[in-house]
């Protein structure tokens, strides 16, 4: 599965990098994403528990924490490299061989780079860094 067909055998360095990001993004998302969705997407809006993002003061407070900023950047950025890799091969499996080509790689992995840049911008501009 997922082997690049090259005319001359050579180490697939770029594939290694994308696969490393894919595996780590997938692993981190596997460990932490369900609880975020459950607490922030279901229990909080239903009012079952008080959640930090339901109130402006607590939300902006926790978003100012540099460790939280780094965590959110790592989660969102790595997850999108995972999604880019997985969706590209999802298209291959659906019978779109063009998904293997360089322009499509540029769109998908470039998209993950763009999401990373936007995430950095959002995290830097949303709440001033504070340890409070």
């Amino acid at each position, binding site marked *: 599965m997922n082997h690049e067909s090259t005319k001359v055998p050579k180490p697939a360095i770029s594939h290694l990098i994308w696969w490393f990001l894919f595996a780590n993004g997938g692993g981190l998302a596997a*460990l932490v*994403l369900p609880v975020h969705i459950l*607490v922030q997407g*279901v229990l909080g809006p239903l009012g079952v528990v008080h959640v930090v993002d339901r109130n402006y*003061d607590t939300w902006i407070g926790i*978003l100012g924490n540099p460790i939280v900023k780094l965590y959110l950047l790592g989660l*969102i950025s790595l*997850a999108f490299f995972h999604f880019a890799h997985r969706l590209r091969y999802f298209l291959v499996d659906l019978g779109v061989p063009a998904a293997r080509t360089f322009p499509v790689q540029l769109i998908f992995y470039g998209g993950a780079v763009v999401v990373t840049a936007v995430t950095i911008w*959002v995290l830097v501009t949303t709440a001033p860094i504070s340890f409070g």
Partner: protein
Amino acid sequence: MTEGDEAEASTGATPRVYKPEMPRGWWLRRRHYLLYMVREFTAVPMALWLLWLLAEIHRAASGPKAYYPAASPAFIVFSVICLGFAMYHSITFLSLAGVIIHLKFMGKPVPPRTIVGAMFGLWLVASVVIAAVLIGFAR
């Protein structure tokens, strides 16, 4: 591939590439194939939910008066659907750790079952810690 073909490939001549023919809708033919494609598809709802999270962070930038947390029934339904896909991703991805990760302890290979068990334990611990932070810092 015959021995002759292999020799030809190793001497630098253009090897013939095997191109499997995949009929349209092949993944609907067996439950196993369908579940594989569902697993690959989990990336889409997970990406959408993380984009929502990014928007929720960004909305806090416009100040206390403009900030309102999402609470519509549509958002909750969206989250429940995303949660299902995210759980399926977690279960399939963490189960694969037993195939991918090879460790030795005291000179003996750690059985895959132990590695998978450790990953599921880590999932539980991470979930408890994150829920504690999300709920504990709320007022």
